[in-house]
């Protein structure tokens, strides 16, 4: 007979208390498994939806590590008979996963070069010392750069700049003020709205392009995506600045001393080094590769080529990449994309899409509007609870099975998944500014709800008045 000491038993009970969502999820999935398969849904589709529900609860509750969720998805896909082991393995790896892996490694490589000080100098030389201009500069630079390099890279480079400015303004970098909140959100929201601009702005854009191509719904190039999304990005910049300024108007209307000190600090770092120059050159080549070569070799392979050059030219060592790359996220998105493909193949996506539209059609007559609002609002809400890429991975196949123009609906979903303004967990950028201890969860809501609603209205106008002109 097994015997436990009181201490071991207390440890087991502690585990149970911390993993209650895992246990609840297990029981929910068992109950769902034994429920009869709904009419119009295949048994594989039924089981795929069980995996989707399990995944969503586990990601939101964070009751187990993300890599464990990723592995669980693969295990469930095989053991529940959704696909064969080889089929699951094949759906796990795709160009989108290559892209996510490559872009995370590129982020580490670029941030490693210490270009943030150069960036700081460039921004303040343009903006001058007026706080409003600096805010505008931060939002604009964060948005434009993150549209090409990706939001977390830019946030990682911009955050020390903002903190240095706060410190040089004579404020405590451990106490929140309206100035610190304003400047930190100008990075977070700038990066978020910038990530819609190009496919390389965020992994979710590439996931959506991958789904469109995989499901035979259309191929969309880097420049075509920009034609759809970039105007929205440009309109959103002044809107975000206005929302932030009126929500967190600081006492300091000018940061004269802070700017002067920052210039002195940055000047100490000397001229642009050969490595920094080379790092910029490699990224420009990667960007050109995304624009001109990605239709032939894929966005992921271009990103990995950039990583190859960074490593080969000695601009970064492999241990630095290995230590700083979030492998758990790569695994999770691989699994989530595999799940998305299974949703499409088993008919689970179609079943959810049809049922959602059917019930909503009774309330609203215009099917096109129903489809758009359902997609955009649900994506925008889910992205604030889950993460943008996870939302697009799981929700993308459902959206693409709703009918209508799949490219427009797909891009609208990707764009809406960037409206991660409301919570700390919505995106790495939100978490990065929260990790400074200077912004609270209430602050996200204070400015976030305004930008959230305005962004949905803007996306509506762009979707129904600008995009039809492109096709």
């Amino acid at each position, binding site marked *: 007979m097994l015997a436990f000491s009181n201490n071991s038993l207390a440890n087991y009970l502690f585990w149970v208390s911390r993993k209650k969502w895992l246990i609840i999820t297990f029981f929910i999935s068992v109950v769902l498994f034994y429920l009869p398969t709904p009419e119009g849904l295949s048994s594989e589709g039924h089981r795929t939806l069980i995996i989707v529900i399990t995944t969503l609860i586990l990601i939101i509750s964070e009751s187990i590590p993300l890599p464990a969720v990723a592995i669980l998805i693969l295990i469930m896909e095989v053991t529940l008979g959704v696909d064969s082991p080889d089929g699951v393995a094949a759906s796990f790896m795709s160009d989108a996963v290559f892209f996510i892996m490559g872009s995370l490694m590129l982020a580490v490589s670029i*941030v490693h070069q210490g270009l943030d000080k150069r960036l700081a100098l460039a921004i303040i030389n343009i903006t001058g010392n007026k706080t409003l201009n600096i805010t505008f500069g931060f939002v604009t630079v964060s948005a434009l750069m993150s549209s090409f390099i990706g939001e977390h890279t830019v946030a*990682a480079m911009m*955050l020390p700049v903002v*903190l240095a400015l706060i410190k040089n303004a004579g404020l405590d970098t451990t106490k929140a003020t309206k100035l610190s909140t304003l400047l930190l959100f100008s990075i977070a929201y700038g990066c978020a709205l910038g990530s819609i601009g190009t496919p390389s702005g965020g992994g979710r854009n590439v996931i959506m392009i991958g789904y469109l191509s995989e499901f035979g719904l259309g191929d969309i190039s880097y420049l075509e995506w920009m034609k759809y999304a970039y105007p929205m990005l440009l309109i959103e910049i002044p809107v975000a600045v206005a929302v932030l300024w009126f929500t967190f108007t600081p006492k300091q209307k000018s940061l004269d001393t802070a700017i002067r000190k920052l210039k002195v600090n940055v000047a100490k770092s000397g001229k642009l080094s050969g490595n920094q120059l080379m790092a910029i050159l490699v990224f420009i080549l990667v960007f050109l590769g995304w624009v001109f070569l990605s239709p032939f070799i894929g966005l992921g392979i271009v990103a990995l080529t950039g990583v190859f050059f960074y490593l080969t030219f000695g601009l970064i060592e492999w241990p630095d990449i290995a230590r*700083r790359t979030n492998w758990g996220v790569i695994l999770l998105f691989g699994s989530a994309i595999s799940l998305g493909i299974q949703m499409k193949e088993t008919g689970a996506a179609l079943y959810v899409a049809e049922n959602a539209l059917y019930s909503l059609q009774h309330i609203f007559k215009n099917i096109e509007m129903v489809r758009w609002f359902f997609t955009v609002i649900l994506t925008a809400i889910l992205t604030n609870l889950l993460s943008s890429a996870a939302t697009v991975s799981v929700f993308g196949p459902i959206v693409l099975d709703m009918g209508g123009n799949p490219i427009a609906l797909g891009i609208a979903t990707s764009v809406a998944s960037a409206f991660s303004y409301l919570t700390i967990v919505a*995106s790495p950028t939100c978490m990065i500014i929260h990790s400074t201890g200077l912004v609270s969860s209430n602050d996200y809501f204070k400015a976030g709800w305004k930008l959230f609603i305005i962004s949905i209205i803007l996306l509506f106008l762009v979707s129904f008045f600008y995009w039809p002109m492109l096709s």
Partner: protein
Amino acid sequence: MKILIAISSKAYSGETLSVGMKIGKAFNASTTIVDVGEKINQFSMKEVDMVQERMDSWDIDRPGVDVLEWAFEYLAEKKLIKTNTIEAGFPKNTLVETGGGRSEVFLEGTFCEDLNLILRNGDIVEELKNEVQSHGYDVTIIGGSGKRRMSHDLTQYINSSIFVVNNYKSNQTYRLLLAVDNSVGTKKAVKYGIRIAQALDIEVDVITVSKTDEFKDDYKNAADWASKFLRRSNINHKNIFLNGNPSELIAREAGDNHIIVMGSSNKNPLKTFFQGNKPLKVLENSQCPILIVK
């Protein structure tokens, strides 16, 4: 003896640090002060690490360093660390990463050899439990958080004695309320209680509560044993005998001007999980500091 003091900020942890260091000094204990920073979402962990590395290159402190710096200043002001350490200033450059997101600064104390400051990040209950488990502390001292559940979980699961510095006011005169009964933890609780009463220079009320109308011999013996020990230690004390619900009566008797010291429960953890136990119920009902001795 090893003591762990959990703090969070200058604004909220002043009393916790002050009481914690008095106790550490009373026991001549190796003392560690820990700040547990907020949990970072798993999607963003690596990115946040990367940003914090960049912050170092700008000479901007990562979150939590300011809390340790404040603790250092407190220790220096009270001369609890050696003069050469004070003169060298807060050694943030020697904040050593010891694995698993745990960073540590080693200081030389005046009353003990090891006086360390550490930073951890994550769920506070899990982090403190791991810290106690991996470094074998005897007493963990925490502030009375607004989140009662946190104190409850720590008391239930942490593998050390736990002192919850609940609503402590340094300008108030306290008495120590020593709850004794027939449990195995009582003797240790009496010994700890005496050391604390001596450290804080306060008098003691020994309380014995029987659920029934009469007091069994083992309850009387426990109270006598505590009285004898207190007399020997020259501590003024009085005995209180009450009948009724122990957790309610101990909390009521303590009010807000006592520090409760009691032994942990020997109830089976499974029963505790579903029904709770006496110390947990006292913790829930009380409005004053409480030490539960394991």
